[in-house]
C-alpha cells in the first residue's frame, strides 16, 4: 500500500490535522502509511497533495478523551516535524485504550507531554519577552514588536495581547507570521523582517536604567538568569545589552561596598519625628490595664501570639464571664468571644435570658496558646504556669469591675477563679459564695460543647449550659 500524503494548510494547522486524522483513523490507516507535510514547506515536492476532506465520521466511531485533544492542540504547535505522526499514533492507541494517557512512563505519552511543555514555555516566554516600540502615525500611536518564537505559536498567543492591550493598536511581527490588532479586530498575516519594526523606543533608556538599578551586584547568579532567560531571546530585548557590563562590574562593586569604611552617620538630617498616632479610645483605668497586659512578658505565650486579648463589656457589669483563652479568631480581632465558641455562648446566653450587652466577658489567659499547622493554628490548653502567670491580670480586672458574680467556663477559668485546680464536673451549676469576693458559678466551656461528637449528648449538655447561665441571669435581674 502506497503511503497516504496529507498536506496541511500551515505549520499550525491543528484543525486540518484533526480532520485528516479522523478520516485516516476511520479507515484504519496505519501511522507508518501516512506522510504528513505542510503546504509551503516544500518538504515533499513529488507527492501530489491529497485533499484532506474525508468522509464524515460518525461521532461514536472514534472517541478519545478530551484530555488528549487538549494535549494535541498544544503539542501540534511544536516545530518538531514528527509531531503530526506522533499525535496520530497516539490517537490510534487511545482509541484502543482510553486510559493510555495515565501511563506517565509510556514513551509516546512522555514525548507528547514534552512537546506540549516546550510549546507552553515558548508561549509563556512570548508573553514575557515581546517588547513593543511606539510608532507615531497620522492617526495616532501604534505599538510594534519584533519577536522570534521557536514554535508555531503566534496565532495561539496573540489573544493574550488582545486581552491585555485591547485599547492599544499593535502589531507583533515574527519571521513566520504576524499579528495585528487595530482596536477591534485581530488579524494575522505573512511573516515579516526585523527591519519592518522600529529599532528603538523613547522609554528604553528609562527601562535600561531600571534594569541596571534593580540588579543587586552582590548576588550574581548568572546561571539562574540564563535558565529563565536563555540567550536566544537576548537579541530582541533592549535591556540585554546591559547584561555583560553589569556582570563584569559586579565583583568590583561588591568589593568596594565591603571595603568601604563605615561612614559617619548623616547628622542633623533626621526627618521629622514620628508623630504619635492619635489615641483611638477613651482612656479609663480598664484601658490602662489593657495596655499593660499587651506588654506582659510573664510567660512565653506573648511571643507567638498577635496580641493580648483583654476583656470587653460595661465597666459596671454585675456579671463577669471568664473563658479559657483567646482562640484563633480572637487573637486576630483582638477581642474576646468572637470565634465559634463565643457565638455559641451568645446563643446560650440569649436563651438563658442573660442579656449579653450587660455582661463583661474576658479570659483566664490573655494570649492565645497554639501550634502552627500549615495554614492553621491548633489550640493548645494553657498549663498551670501560664494560668498562674496570667492570674494577676484577671484579679486586677475583677478588682476594677467589682462584679457580684464570676461565671467560670471550663477548668482553666475555674482554676483561675479559685486559685487552685477545680473539677468542673463536681462544681458546675452551683453558686460558690465567698467572703469579700464575688460569687463564683462554674460551668463548662462552650468549646467543650462544640467538640462533643454525639448529637443527643451535645443537645443535653447544651441545655444544662443554658440552665447554668440562667442562674447568672438572676444576678442581672437583681441588680436591675
Amino acid at each position: 500500500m502506497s503511503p497516504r500524503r496529507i498536506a496541511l494548510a500551515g505549520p499550525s494547522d491543528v484543525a486540518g490535522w484533526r480532520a485528516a486524522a479522523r478520516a485516516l483513523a476511520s479507515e484504519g490507516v496505519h501511522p507508518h502509511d501516512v506522510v504528513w507535510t505542510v503546504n509551503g514547506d516544500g518538504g515533499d515536492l513529488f507527492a501530489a497533495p491529497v485533499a484532506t476532506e474525508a468522509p464524515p465520521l460518525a461521532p461514536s466511531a472514534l472517541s478519545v478523551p478530551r484530555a488528549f485533544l487538549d494535549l494535541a492542540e498544544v503539542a501540534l504547535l511544536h516545530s518538531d516535524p514528527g509531531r503530526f505522526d506522533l499525535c496520530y499514533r497516539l490517537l490510534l492507541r487511545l482509541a484502543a485504550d482510553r486510559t493510555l494517557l495515565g501511563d506517565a512512563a509510556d514513551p509516546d505519552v512522555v514525548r507528547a507531554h514534552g512537546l506540549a511543555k516546550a510549546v507552553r514555555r515558548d508561549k509563556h516566554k512570548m508573553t514575557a519577552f515581546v517588547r513593543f516600540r511606539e510608532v507615531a502615525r497620522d492617526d495616532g500611536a501604534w505599538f510594534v514588536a519584533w519577536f522570534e518564537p521557536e514554535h508555531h505559536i503566534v496565532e495561539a498567543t496573540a489573544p493574550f495581547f488582545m486581552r491585555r492591550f485591547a485599547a492599544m493598536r499593535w502589531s507583533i511581527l515574527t519571521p513566520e507570521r504576524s499579528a495585528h490588532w487595530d482596536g477591534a479586530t485581530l488579524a494575522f498575516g505573512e511573516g515579516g523582517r526585523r527591519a519592518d519594526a522600529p529599532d528603538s523606543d523613547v522609554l528604553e533608556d528609562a527601562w535600561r536604567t531600571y534594569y541596571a538599578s534593580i540588579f543587586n551586584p552582590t548576588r550574581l547568579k548568572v546561571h539562574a538568569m540564563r535558565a529563565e532567560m536563555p540567550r536566544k531571546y537576548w537579541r530582541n530585548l533592549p535591556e540585554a545589552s546591559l547584561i555583560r557590563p553589569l556582570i563584569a562590574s559586579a565583583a568590583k562593586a561588591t568589593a568596594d561596598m565591603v571595603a568601604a569604611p563605615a561612614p559617619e552617620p548623616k547628622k542633623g538630617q533626621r526627618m521629622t519625628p514620628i508623630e504619635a498616632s492619635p489615641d483611638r479610645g477613651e482612656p479609663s483605668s480598664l484601658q490602662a490595664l489593657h495596655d499593660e497586659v499587651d506588654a506582659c512578658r510573664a510567660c512565653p505565650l506573648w511571643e507567638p501570639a498577635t496580641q493580648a486579648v483583654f476583656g470587653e463589656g460595661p465597666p459596671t457589669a454585675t456579671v463577669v464571664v471568664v473563658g479559657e483563652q483567646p482562640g484563633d479568631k480572637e487573637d486576630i480581632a483582638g477581642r474576646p468571644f468572637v470565634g465559634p465558641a463565643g457565638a455559641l455562648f451568645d446563643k446560650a446566653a440569649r436563651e438563658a435570658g442573660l442579656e449579653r450587652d450587660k455582661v463583661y466577658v474576658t479570659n483566664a489567659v490573655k494570649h492565645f496558646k497554639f501550634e502552627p499547622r500549615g495554614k492553621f493554628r491548633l489550640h493548645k490548653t494553657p498549663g498551670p504556669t501560664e494560668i498562674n502567670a496570667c492570674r494577676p491580670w484577671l484579679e486586677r480586672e475583677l478588682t476594677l469591675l467589682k462584679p457580684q458574680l464570676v461565671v467560670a467556663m471550663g477548668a482553666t477559668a475555674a482554676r483561675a477563679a479559685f486559685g487552685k485546680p477545680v473539677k468542673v464536673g463536681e462544681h458546675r451549676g452551683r453558686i460558690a459564695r465567698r467572703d469579700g469576693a464575688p460569687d463564683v458559678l462554674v460551668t463548662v466551656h462552650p468549646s467543650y460543647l462544640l467538640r462533643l461528637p454525639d448529637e443527643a449528648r451535645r443537645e443535653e449538655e447544651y441545655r444544662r449550659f443554658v440552665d447554668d447561665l440562667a442562674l447568672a441571669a438572676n444576678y442581672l435581674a437583681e441588680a436591675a
Partner: protein
Amino acid sequence: MDITAKLAILADAAKYDASCASSGTDKRTSAGSKGGPARGLGSTEGAGICHSYAPDGRCISLLKILLTNACAFDCLYCVNRATSNTPRARFTVEEAVTLTLDFYRRNYIEGLFLSSGVIRNADYTMEQVMRVAKSLRLDHGFKGYIHLKTIPDAAPELIAEAGLYADRLSINVELPNETSLKRLAPEKDLRAVRRTMADLRGRIEEAKEPTAAGRARPPRFAPAGQSTQMIVGADASDDRAILTTSANLYGSYRLKRVYFSAFSPIPDASAALPLAAPPLVREHRLYQADWLMRFYGFNVAEITEGGGMLDLSIDPKLAWALRHREQFPLDVARASREQLLRTPGLGKTVVDRILSARRFRMLRVEDLRRMRAPLAKALPFLKLADHTPSITTLESERLIERFVPQPRQMALAL
C-alpha cells in the same frame, strides 16, 4: 531631577525586597465584553509573568520602586535609613502612575510593586502609596497587578482603601524576633506589624466569604493575599528560629509567601553589620525548607532535628532522609504518596507521574529516567522492578559523599 535619575535612586532603594510575585489574583481583562469597546489597560490571568531577569537571577515582573527613599526610621540593615548618606528622591503620585503605564504599554512589566520610606507619619505615607494605586485604577482603568507595601499602624480606612485597589499587600517582619528587631530597627514595632497582618487576614477572609442572600457584598480586598519578608544573616538568629517564625506567620496570618532575603552588603553600611558576601546558599536552603513545610508535609522540628542550622552542603530533604535511613528503601510499587514525597530528589510532579504510571506497569529505572526523576539522588532510596539499592550503601557513613558537590573551580559563566 529628571524622571530617569529619580528612577535610578528609587529602584536601587527598592531592590532589597525579594518579592516579585504577580500571580494568584482575580482574572481581569481590558478587552470589551462581546466585542464592545476596550476598557482601560491591562490584564491578569492567574499565572504571573516574569518579563526579564537580572544577572542576580531574580525575575523582573513588577516595576519595583519606592515612592520616596527618605525615611524617618533608622533601621541599620537598610540602605534608606535616616542616617545614611544615600541620595534621596521622591516621585510625585503622577510620575509613578505615568511611569507604570508607559512601562506596561511596552510589555516590560506585569504591574507595580510600590513601597515607601516612612515620611511624616504612618497615615500620610500610607495615603501617598494608596493614591498611586487609586489613580491607576480609577483615572486610567489599569487592570494590571498592583502590590502595595502596608505601613504598620496606618489608619484602618486607609488600609481598607489600599485593599480595594491592590492585588497584594505586604508588610515585612524583617527579623525573626523582637530582640533582633529592637537592636537593628529600634523604631519598628513588631507588635504593630503583627496586628497589621492580623487585620489584613481578617479583611482578606471577609472579602472572600460567600455573600449571604440579601446582604451587601463585602468590598474587594487584596485578592492575591499578603506576604512578608525576613532578612537572613543580619542578626544571630539560626535557621530554626527563622523557620519557626515563618511557620507561625503562615499559620497565624495565612500568608501566601514568606520571602527570605540574604543580607547583602549595601552602600554606606552601618559598622554594626556583617559586611560579607550574602549567605545565598543559606537563603536557598531556607527556601527549600519552606517548600518542604508547605507542600511536602514536613514540620520545623523534623527539618531542624539535626541542629539549629541547616546543612549547607545538601538539601534539607536529603539531610532528613540520611537521618532516617531506616525508612528506606521504599518500594516504588507500593509506597504511599506521603512516603514518595519524602524521598530525596522526587518532587510533586514526578511523584504524581509515578502514582499514575504504576497502575500500568512495574516501574523500572528506565521508566523513572523517562519521567525525569533525578536518578543519582533518588535511586539509593528506591526499590524498583530492576533495581534494589545495596543496604550496605544505604547504611554507609560515606553515602553522603555521593551527594555533596565536588569542589570545582568557579567558572565564569557566559
